[in-house]
């Protein structure tokens, strides 16, 4: 049994998680969205909330917005395969709204951050932080903004591409 690297690393990242409590199955059924293929999906409100959440977790304003949409896409693929993760996500998103007293998405940035700070130790937040971390920090567009030049083999290494060009010491 080959353990998937991403879920393994996410588990390590989440190693000091506070247990959230029992799942309310009726409540979660009301939140569940199933498309006409019978698969779990995230609706527009949930996606918009996630996009804002991922941006606030790792804001890279000079990166193309698609980097956050890519994380949502990956999350959608992930929750299709894993019912318990789907429940974690949709309940976590609902909790953001509950804590806000209205749609968290409509709050000011300061207030949005305030809500996030309240749930920092909870499984939903820890899981989304780990997920965003491994996806965003391996996105070539984020690399561009950070100044990481990425894969090297096909470019012949750095021997002729500035491996020793430091000039300010």
């Amino acid at each position, binding site marked *: *049994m*080959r*353990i998937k*690297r*991403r879920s*393994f690393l996410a*588990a*390590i*990242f989440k*190693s000091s998680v506070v247990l959230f409590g029992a799942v309310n199955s009726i409540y979660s059924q009301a939140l569940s969205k199933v498309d006409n293929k019978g698969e779990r999906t995230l609706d527009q409100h949930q996606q918009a909330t996630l996009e804002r959440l991922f941006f*606030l*977790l*790792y*804001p*890279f304003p000079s990166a193309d917005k698609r980097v956050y949409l890519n994380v949502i896409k990956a999350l959608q693929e992930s929750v299709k395969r894993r019912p318990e993760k789907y429940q974690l996500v949709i309940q976590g998103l609902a909790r953001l709204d509950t804590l806000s007293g209205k749609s968290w998405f409509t709050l000011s940035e300061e207030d949005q*951050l305030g809500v996030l700070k309240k749930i920092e130790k909870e499984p939903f937040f820890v899981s989304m*932080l780990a997920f965003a*971390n*491994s996806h965003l*920090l*391996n996105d070539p567009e*984020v*690399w561009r*903004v*950070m*100044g*990481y*030049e990425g*894969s*090297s*083999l*096909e470019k*012949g*290494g*750095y*021997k002729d*591409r*500035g*491996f*020793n*060009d*430091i000039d*300010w*010491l």
Partner: protein
Amino acid sequence: MIKKFSQDDDSVVVVVGSGAGGATLSRELSNAGIDVLCLEAGSPVERIVTDAQEMFGRLTWFDRRIGSGDLIKDFPVWSGKNVGGTTMHWTASTPRIPRAEFRPSRYFGDLKHCSIIDWPIAYDDFQPWYHKAEQQMGVSNTHGRPPLPANNHYKLLEAGARRIGLKQAHIGNMAINSVAQGGRPACIQLGFCVSGCAINAKWTAANTPIAQAMGTGHFELRSESFVLRIEHDKKGRAAQVVYVDAAGKLQKQKARVVCVAANSIDTPRILLHSDSAQFPRGLANRAGHVGKHYMKHVFSVVTAIMPKPVNFHRGTQNMGIVDDFVKGDRKRGFAGGFKFEMVSFDPESLTKFVQPGSWGRDYTDILSKYDHFAALLVMGEDPSQSENHVSLHATEKDQYGMPVPVIHYRDHENSKTMRRFGQQQAKRLYESLGSERVFIGPSPPATHNMGTCRMATKAEDGVCDAHGRSFDVPNLFISDGSQFPSSGSSNPTLTIVALALRQADYIKNQMQSRKL
């Protein structure tokens, strides 16, 4: 023609593990006409790409291990599961253990709660083996081979060291080709050493000793073969090795000699799991030291944002060393020594060492300065403590039905003081060059694992003698870093290879004179 030994062939030497120790031993013996079967838990690495996270996923030993004490519970150890073992991802740093560190009792002897013993091999007697290992690995900066060229990150480390009055910054001895040799090309500064060298400029157990053993006609490599147990005969001699094959079926292989080189977690694990009526505490464990005295080096990662770009991802990741603190000085407040070793990270890995768990704008402001980062490892000598140990979990089993290993480790007070001192010196170094911020990072998962089947002069003090031969089982050898009676302050692989070369000579002599 691919060699295949019969499972009933009891004339073969069975080597468990194809890492630095197992592969070197396999090549030496098969080259001398001795039949060797190497059982390797992992698979051959098919293709290496310059993508750090992708390769981490492919090279790493992910079988469950439980960390206890000061270790990360779910991932206490970072080793490799593939043909070539941990050398597939290693940094290729190949320093020798210095003379003084062969006698740790002279400076660690008065530390409380320790189990310090000296090496049972004299430093001078061991030098020819280091020499041989350096030649076989093509170590740069030794025996006429040029050093690797200085990259930006090294120039920065060296400049900072000079600024704070240090005199022993150097490029380092690396098992990475500075010139083409051994049928492998010279380094082109890919910058992904730790992800596996895509062009094989870096020596690995797979591209050198295993490849060479294959050409002898006396060697078989059985990969995806997970060893569970070593069984012995009525005389107490190792007789056969029990393993799970690639199809998940239990297999038994007879052996004339068994050499265990499964790294310092799984070597004791196999022996503990091989208990019997004659060896109730585990095979080769009459004195009770199997699994004990686990050492991993005192580690810390210190990173800094420099005032201008460094681009530390460009080129060889770990070839800068500062040795000024290797020689111990009690006036510092601790015994023993440490070195600085340069280290670079891909973006995701960087977040594990720079304020891990952080998020938000302040954090991405830091990450957006990626190309201004510099980093180093503080790597120090770890005094052996018998309570730091590997054991079998009482109830948890892995996918093969074998008890999950538990690794318990607590820092000694000496190590805590050493680490703090090292961190402060690293901070001074970066601040001398105008760093904007310095971050003290956590200890990474242990990549240097040593001591769990240690060699000793006397049977009551260890598991094996100065040749790695078990005191209890005459045809059983320990052939990896488990043998180390002390950790020294050096990366272990060169010493593991040198020990394997020396052990191979001994085994050859013993077999030729029918004493084995």
